[in-house]
């Protein structure tokens, strides 16, 4: 049997907690840290001194507070010096960013991604972006790692992307390919797009303070990042949260996954465009076009939005009954569809969800918008640092 945690472990844990606090909440005074973390003042002082020496935070006197007494020093994350690369492989585009500690995007690149592009072709432009951004990094900056958000099912252990039907891959070693392309990349972590977005909205966005959250991300398909009791629901292999493939209409359309009547065949991009009589179009802009037309009074577009809204409410109602979340966040193109079809979504949700499950539900749009995926990807990389700030 093992004794309690050693002094060293406690210290490492406290360092991680403090760094995580300023990473998520931004500049915070020592006095407030003392309150929030429940540690005493001298401990906070010693911990910040360690983190300052390690170059992870800075301390400075605050602006004039107008109050009596010596002002408490403000601890800020070293956003411009400590950074991670964040890559995001989405259905329509590829994005890369350099994200500073504290979740600040320092530099970003973006390119379109043609539908059906193969994995190797996606990895190369992303690696190109990283090489480009690397040239502008100041000499004293510290690289932490790289995180990748993929719109697909990702085996976190080795970055194998499995059956991402919307992007058209079956089983592709994205992690290995990126590693080969980037060369000396250090820690490389992959995660599902909706999962990482959910984590970010949970820690610093629209669902901050909520412990039970469902983040829905819609484009061609629909995915979800589910947080229950403050933890991500990942499932056995890490593939959970594929709500887009819950079957809502057994007699519905065929889905790209091979099944029939999956939720995303009723609420995804294709369904909306088809109802709007624009079946030949694809992409985010086309979806926004339908939303815009609906708001301007186009009856066909309004029909499409209402139809899709009903089905969104149907699925969300089921999820609400199962998870009893405090907050459901509509991301991707679902944000725009939600804002224009809220009446249908809410009405259907009210009809389907049990009163006890829905009474405190908050339906929200993301606060970090499309940046959530990039900040979330960076979060995957920062996670290693936050676990043990003084390592490496």
């Amino acid at each position, binding site marked *: 049997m093992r004794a309690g945690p050693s002094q060293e472990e406690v210290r490492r844990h406290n360092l991680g907690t403090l760094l995580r606090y300023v990473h998520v909440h931004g500049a915070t005074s020592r006095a407030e840290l003392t309150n929030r973390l429940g540690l005493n003042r001298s401990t906070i002082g010693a911990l910040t001194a360690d983190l300052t020496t390690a170059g992870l935070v800075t301390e400075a006197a605050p602006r004039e507070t107008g109050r009596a007494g010596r002002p408490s020093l403000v601890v800020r994350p070293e956003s411009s010096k400590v950074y991670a690369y964040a890559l995001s492989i989405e259905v329509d585009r590829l994005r890369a960013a350099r994200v500073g500690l504290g979740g600040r995007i320092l530099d970003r690149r973006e390119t379109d991604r043609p539908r059906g592009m193969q994995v190797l072709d996606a990895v190369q432009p992303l690696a190109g972006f990283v090489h480009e951004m690397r040239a502008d990094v100041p000499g004293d900056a510290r690289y932490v790692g790289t995180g990748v958000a993929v719109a697909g099912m990702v085996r976190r252990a080795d970055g194998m992307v499995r059956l991402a039907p919307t992007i058209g891959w079956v089983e592709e070693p994205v992690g290995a390919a990126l590693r080969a392309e980037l060369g000396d990349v250090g820690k490389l972590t992959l995660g599902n797009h909706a999962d990482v977005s959910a984590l970010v909205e949970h820690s610093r966005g629209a669902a901050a303070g909520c412990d039970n959250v469902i983040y829905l991300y819609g484009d061609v398909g629909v995915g979800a990042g589910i947080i229950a009791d403050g933890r991500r629901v990942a499932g056995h292999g890490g593939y959970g949260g594929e709500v887009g493939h819950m079957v809502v209409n057994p007699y519905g359309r065929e889905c790209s996954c091979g099944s029939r009547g999956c939720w995303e065949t009723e609420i995804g991009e294709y369904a909306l465009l088809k109802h709007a009589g624009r079946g030949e179009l694809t992409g985010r802009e086309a979806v926004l076009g339908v939303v815009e037309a609906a708001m301007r009074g186009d009856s066909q577009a309004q029909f499409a939005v209402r139809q899709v809204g009903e089905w969104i409410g149907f699925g969300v109602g089921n999820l609400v009954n199962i998870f009893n979340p405090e907050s459901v966040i509509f991301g991707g193109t679902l944000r725009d569809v939600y*804002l224009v079809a809220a009446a249908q979504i809410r*009405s259907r949700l009210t009809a389907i969800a049990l*009163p006890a499950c829905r009474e405190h539900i908050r339906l929200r749009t993301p606060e970090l918008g499309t940046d959530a995926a990039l900040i979330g990807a960076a979060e995957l990389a920062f996670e290693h640092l936050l676990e043990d700030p003084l390592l490496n």
Partner: protein
Amino acid sequence: MAATPLLELNGINKGFGPVQVLHDVNLSVYPGEVTALVGDNGAGKSTMVKCISGIYQIDSGTVTFEGNQVAIHGPSDASALGIEVVYQDLALCDNLDVVQNMFLGREKKRGIVLDEPTMEQMAGDALASLSVRTLKSLRQLVASLSGGQRQTVAIAKAVLWNSKVVILDEPTAALGVAQTAQVLELVRRLADNGLGVVLISHNMNDVFAVSDRIAALYLGRMAAQVKTTDVTHSQVVELITGGRSGNIGLPPEKPADFGGDVVDITPGGDK
């Protein structure tokens, strides 16, 4: 979701000469929630807002703010309590910049000169607290702003004064699609920051997208105040157009005879 209302109106009556506009209206506004005030044209929405903001005096009824009964005799009483109204026409001055507009009539002074740095700082903080990123400069003239940006400035102006209740009159009317979405998110954020928000809107999607409660006025009477999670779109439309829906809303009997007696209504029995 707090249990005690921030602002509570009870039995409000208001008439203009022979025309009785509001009959025994009740309304509760809770902190951290958006209460949507809906009703057809002429239902009394604007009159009610003007009663709350002190432009009109109520004929009878009580107003309770944070648990204390208060009397609102004029707009300055309302703003002293922390009630701000953002009107449909926004009431911004085109020839002034963002900061000047936000402090118009309530400028901060240091001695006899205006304290520009403090005002700019406060304006910036107010916009930042609402995560507004669409404004390039605080010294831009309002004339150069888009409709959505003006709406943003008008709303930020309302939160600048430690206001507790913000009333928004049709904030998304006359806005483009993207701007409507932004303003709706802003309305939601106001409430999530702990304010009590009253949203007047004709657009059912806006109402369902951001509200926690819906208060439906019908011909000067409060048909019902319900939680948004408990009603459907068609129920709210029935409340607006007919004053009742199933077992919620005004009693089916002649409303004029209804003098505060208890009226039993069988659920669904009036269909």
